[in-house]
């Protein structure tokens, strides 16, 4: 049973596919991070899911949605840079969008009060939004996305524009919210994704290159890694190390050569043999395991 089902979702701008045939489903009650570098197509994807952009191809369907139904009834959306009517108070704005989401006025008002409390800006509820700080606006933004109790809330880079304190507050808030609803949020920062999300969609150049639960991805990509440092420029030795058969992949990262291998024992033997045969000036030899960050970096660099 999935909350939302995305089928071959594609967006083309000026003959260029910005989002390429995405297929995925989101399960209820999960917090899912759409992770990818800037320009990967995250915002475009989220805007199509929320009904602000029409897909060039493909479809988005919600569980229980009627034929030709309005997907906007089922989602709450927070854009990356939410803009409000600055002349309204936070509470007025929530009631306004609540009524737009077909809540009767009384109910919109009750819901606005409880959400203001929930996101921690109850004191500022009657103040003009123009006077709010960035963190307060972000929290008001989350409240407006929640106003009609949608099945799914979509947050576009909810923490990236905040200072460390605001960011901590919003992450904690998301942690609470995922108890009640399904959350899909985009980020370009892996640690934010790891912190609050259950599942990960890794996006790069308009495609989902990897997806699954954080745990399963961690295990899946936990291959052995050997880090080497040499006395002079690492570049000189990369090519000769690459040629060792037990080395699968190699790259230079932070002045270290990183070799990905399957069989650690075999690889260690081969590498050390090569070092002694060719008398390479090895200064550091370390065996470790890859992390999600390595996966992320690998994807981004290709």
């Amino acid at each position, binding site marked *: 049973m999935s909350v939302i089902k995305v089928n071959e979702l594609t967006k083309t701008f000026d003959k260029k596919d910005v989002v390429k045939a995405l297929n995925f489903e989101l399960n209820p009650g999960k917090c899912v991070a759409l992770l990818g570098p800037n320009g990967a197509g995250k915002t475009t994807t989220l*805007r199509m899911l929320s*009904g*602000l*952009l029409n897909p060039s191809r493909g479809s988005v369907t919600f569980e229980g949605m009627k034929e030709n139904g309005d997907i906007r009834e089922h989602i709450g*959306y927070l854009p990356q840079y939410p803009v409000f009517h600055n002349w309204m108070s936070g509470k007025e704005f929530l009631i306004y*969008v609540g*009524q*737009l*989401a*077909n809540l009767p006025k009384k109910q919109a008002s009750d819901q606005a009060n409880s959400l203001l409390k929930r996101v921690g800006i109850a004191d500022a509820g009657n103040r003009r939004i123009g006077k709010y700080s960035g963190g307060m606006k972000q929290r008001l933004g989350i409240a407006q996305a929640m106003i009609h109790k949608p099945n799914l809330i979509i947050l576009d880079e909810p923490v990236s524009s905040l200072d460390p304190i605001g960011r901590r507050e919003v992450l904690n808030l998301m942690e609470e919210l995922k108890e009640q609803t399904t959350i899909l949020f985009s980020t370009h920062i892996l640690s934010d994704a790891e912190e609050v999300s259950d599942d990960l969609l890794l996006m790069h150049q308009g495609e989902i290159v990897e997806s699954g639960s954080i745990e399963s991805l961690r295990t899946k990509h936990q291959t052995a890694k050997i880090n080497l440092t040499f006395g002079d420029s690492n570049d000189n030795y990369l090519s000769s190390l690459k040629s060792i058969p037990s080395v699968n992949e190699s790259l230079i990262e932070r002045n270290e050569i990183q070799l990905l291998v399957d069989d650690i024992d075999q690889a260690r033997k081969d590498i050390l043999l090569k070092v002694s045969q060719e008398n390479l000036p090895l200064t550091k030899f370390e065996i470790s395991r890859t992390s999600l960050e390595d996966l992320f970096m690998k994807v981004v660099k290709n």
Partner: protein
Amino acid sequence: MQWKTIFVKEMLEDWRNFKWIWVPLVFILIAIMDPLTTYYMPKILDAVGGLPDGTVFEIPDVSPVAAMMMSLSEMSMFGVVVIVAITMGVIAGERRSGVAELVLVKPVSYLTYITSKWAEKLVLVWISFIIGMFASWYYVNLLFGEISFSAFLQVLFFYGLWLSLVVTITIFFNTLFKVPGLVLFVTIATIIMMSIINQVFSHVLIWFPNNMSSHIGGMLDGNHVSGDLWGTAFVTIEVIILLIIASLFSFRGKEMAN
């Protein structure tokens, strides 16, 4: 329900940014300025010392109808500019700032969004126009002579239709462009173009909306509503409806994220 929500929000916004105060006041000024200065011009000229000795004061030879037409002619200049200026950002401004994203991500139909804003601006414009014209009617009766109340109501109705068209044209360009200044410019340019077309082809395009005030003048002179005035009113209403439909299509074609 949603329609009323947006309508009420627009009302509140125009109240908080003082439009409900200043627009009626400005319409009064626009409506009475010309009749008043015309009436007092000889006295003012005299006071400034522009007239030779022996010039006799006379109430200028202006009929009540001509005086009221002066108000309409000022309306067609300054009134129109004010209307376009207060309407130029209703949709364009929200799209440009990004608030439209938060509104349109709720299940609001584009028709609701456009027509509720359109209707609120119509109410503001009609009320301001009526207040302004009441002031003009008062002064015309006081200074130039009587215009009957029923004739005055007819002036309000028919000229109000023309102003409604101005609101609608501005709303239409609001859905095409998202820079309010550009909406202003293109709308004014369109209205000027329309008036040029009207001047060149007025003998053929008798029911052209811009002919409204000349037919109103005829109505005031002849004391009855001519078929041409009805025809012009009919065409104006048609164009308003077509423009609302066109706005809907133009808005639908837009992607909110751009």
